[in-house]
């Protein structure tokens, strides 16, 4: 038995001895290095060696979640004992369902470890040089960005007998380039290092900065627009939140009132949660309950197919788990969109007249249930006329609803991008999309 599994096994035994009926232990050991760049140079390096233990405990259908950012066995055991004394001072969770029996098909996902990433933990200077030098060589006057890489071991041990570990690397780089008043930003995230992708991050951010160096205002109104994967990735996080069955049960999802089979998006949109593609940052072979992960289609050609479930939400709604635990909150692993048949340039030609939004931030909701939101563009906002980029616009604010966004996607690009940066939480592999008629307020 490996060290983490023995550790987890010991915690499970102690929890059962203390009076809990069930226990799951999730152990995350991470070695991580982050390099932050600003004003064309490295401004700080950050380095973490951390262990985290998360526990799920239940007794008499009461549900407890514990998290320890320090793996201190005495502290964990002491806390379990103290918590056990208060079991009767809490109440049954209305979401309670037993932990599942071990799923024989739930195994660590093969692949997902890149020795090159691991080797760069102590010295990622090769990447910072590529990012800075490539962008400056492409005309950027000033750059800022991040290199974030490391290795994570994730182990799950449950009182039902599940015991598995996965060890995977991660590599993220994103860069923002500035030229005069223009700026461009692009990012990349994968399990693997790829120098060409890093160069592409730098090159594309510099290109967008050059294209937006002079800007003019555009009037409020309805616009056709091409959304870059950076924008779509940021917005899809809110979409995915609505697909979590817990949001749905709690009455906070924009899908409220909808059911599988209902039309919720345009025919060209097929959205999946894919944990099985081993190069994606969210890839994993088993969820936090020990259920085998699988590809779940959330929207198929515009039709709502399934919510994301753990065993609790599934039991509550009378369906099966989709392998997306979170012990309480079912969450997506990696969101993907089925590619269309248009190249990125073809999408712009198809747009004919409108805007290309290359990046956004600060999406906020006025009403989660109705999906009413606004988001602010940042970096290059390109004006398209007669299918050609003819200039750049000053920042705008998109003010619309998630149902409108999903139903007005009229074309999907064929090239998929693994974009990642500060505003994209859930990993994605998605294309550019063309949306007809989103409102800009200012």
């Amino acid at each position, binding site marked *: 038995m490996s060290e983490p599994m023995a550790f987890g096994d010991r915690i499970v035994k102690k929890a059962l001895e203390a009076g809990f009926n069930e226990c799951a232990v999730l152990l995350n050991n991470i070695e991580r290095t982050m390099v932050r760049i*600003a*004003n064309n*140079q*490295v401004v*700080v*390096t*950050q*380095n*973490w*060696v951390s262990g985290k233990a998360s526990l799920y405990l239940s007794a008499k259908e*009461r*549900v407890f*979640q*514990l*998290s320890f*950012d*320090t793996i*201190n066995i005495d502290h964990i055991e002491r*806390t379990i004992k103290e*918590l056990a004394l*208060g079991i009767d*001072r*809490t*109440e*049954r*969770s*209305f*979401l309670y369902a037993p932990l599942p029996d071990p799923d024989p098909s739930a195994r660590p996902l093969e692949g997902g470890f890149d020795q090159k990433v691991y080797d760069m933990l*102590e*010295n990622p*200077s090769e990447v910072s040089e590529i990012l800075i030098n490539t962008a400056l060589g492409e005309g950027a006057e000033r750059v*800022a960005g*991040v290199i974030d890489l490391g290795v994570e071991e994730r182990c799950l041990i449950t009182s039902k007998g599940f015991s598995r570990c996965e060890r995977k690397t991660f590599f993220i780089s*994103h860069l*923002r380039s500035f030229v005069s008043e223009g700026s461009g930003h692009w990012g990349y995230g994968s399990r693997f290092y790829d120098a060409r992708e890093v160069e592409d991050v730098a090159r594309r951010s510099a290109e967008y900065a050059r294209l937006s160096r002079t800007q003019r205002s555009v009037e409020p109104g309805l616009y056709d627009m091409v959304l870059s994967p950076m924008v779509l990735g940021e917005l899809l996080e809110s979409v995915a939140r609505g697909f979590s069955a817990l949001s749905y049960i*709690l*009455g*906070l999802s924009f899908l409220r009132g909808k059911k599988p089979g209902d039309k919720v998006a345009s025919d060209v949109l097929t959205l999946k949660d894919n944990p099985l593609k081993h190069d994606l940052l969210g890839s994993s072979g088993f969820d936090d309950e020990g259920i085998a992960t699988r590809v779940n289609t959330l929207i198929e050609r515009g039709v709502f197919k399934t919510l994301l479930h753990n065993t609790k939400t599934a039991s509550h709604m009378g369906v099966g788990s989709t392998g997306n635990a979170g012990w*309480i909150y079912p969450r997506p692993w990696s969101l993907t969109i089925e590619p269309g048949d248009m190249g990125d340039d073809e999408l712009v030609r198809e747009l004919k007249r409108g805007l290309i939004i290359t990046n956004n*931030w*600060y*999406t*906020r*909701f*006025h*009403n989660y*249930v*109705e999906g009413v*939101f*606004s*988001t*602010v563009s*940042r970096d290059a906002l390109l004006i398209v006329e007669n299918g050609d980029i003819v200039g750049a616009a000053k*920042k705008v*604010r998109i*003010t619309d609803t998630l149902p409108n966004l999903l139903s007005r996607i009229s074309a999907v690009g064929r090239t998929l991008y693994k974009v990642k940066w*500060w505003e994209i939480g859930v990993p994605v592999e998605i294309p550019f999309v063309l949306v007809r008629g989103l*409102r800009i*307020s*200012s």
Partner: protein
Amino acid sequence: MEDILNLAVDYARSLGATYAEARYHRIEGGNINLRADRVIGITYRASEGIGVRVIYNGALAFASTTRLDAEGIKKAVERAVATARVFSESIKRKTELSSERLGRSSYEVKPKKSFDSMPQDLKISFLKDLYTIALESLKEARLSTLLTSYSESIEEKMVINSDGAYIRSRLPRIESFINIVLSSPEKGTINKWLEIGAVRGLEHFEEIKLVDSLKETISRMEENLLRGIEPPKEKVDVILGSEVVGLIVHEGVGHPLEADRVFGREAAQAGESYVKPEMVGKVRIGNRYATIIDDPTIPGSSGYYLYDDEGVPARPKILYREGVIENLLHNRETAHLMGVASNASARATNHASEPIVRMSNTYLAPGDMEFEELIEDIDLGVYIKSNMEWNIDDTRWRHRYIGLEAFLIEKGELTKPVRNPVIEITTGDLLSSIVAADKNLEFFPGMCGKGEPMQGIPVWMGGPNIRLPKISIGVAPIE
């Protein structure tokens, strides 16, 4: 622990670091989460570790560890020094720190009513009572969703650095989140996210009269949902409530005056600023009502501290004085770049976070009028008491706020509820057009995000009710 931190500082210096800092940081607490009157689950969390910062040949590096023994801390120091060494030769602008008189002190906030004084079952009962109160506050609308979350924690820190700082602190934090959705078959839904937070004990709920506040909020939401009218189409006088004003000065003044942002360190994350270093002390953005202060020493506040995480003694900072930018928010690194003293704005979320420039409690200075005086000569206007959606561009200039609890003002009186009024305005237009402020200074808690990895840090935001003349108001939802 003191020995381990001293070991970290001494060891870093022996490896060639010109500056070394070690911070023990522990946060322990828990949450209770309910939907309506039913428990979802109970959580407990403990975060404990040491964060180390070093400067080696002008390169700044941070490392953290959850191993609290000598071997663990020495490895963290070695990692910090090693990565700093890798980049030190390529760095053109070396990191230096301002010279400061650093603190050697301990402080603690003792709650009047400790978290342990109320057993778990009574805390659950309290949250259940909120559901009953919410139901009883409604006359016609349906309570579609009520999520309540109660959170308590103790934050302990010890900071030691090679420039002589020695700071210990212990703070209790209480927070509660209430997500309310009311619905009506004819009118749709209205959604509010109510947030409560302070560095206090359980007495905070009584002091802010949480029960009364919830009743009033739900009644206003119901009125707004069922009987809210569209805002006037013409330009009218607008009264912005303390909650909205606090958010505006946080987003449009506090953030852009963070000196690290001004110098471009957040360019790829939280963004840049409309402020340039040479504007300080010279450029007028607002009018005489625009005096904005950041003060970490307000007792009980979410942003409370007496020394920052670099050991600099905390004090109130005037960010804008009567419309003129007077001070940026500084840590020792940005203070050195500007040739000024740090004003103690370095904060770290936890042991795994580097200290960066942060706000504490940011507010617009109150005026001397009563609320009634503020509105008495308004023939037609709108009072936006609170908001839900908001956002701002990444230089912190162009704001948007959608009012949630809002009222029509007719002939000096609040009359009908107004549904979803939208204000889109620049920082400059807003701060230069205030024509009056009342004396009702109120604060609201928030979790401020910045940095990479993202650091959420508790703050208060506040101000009085203010009056703006002849503002265009939009309306949402948009169709």
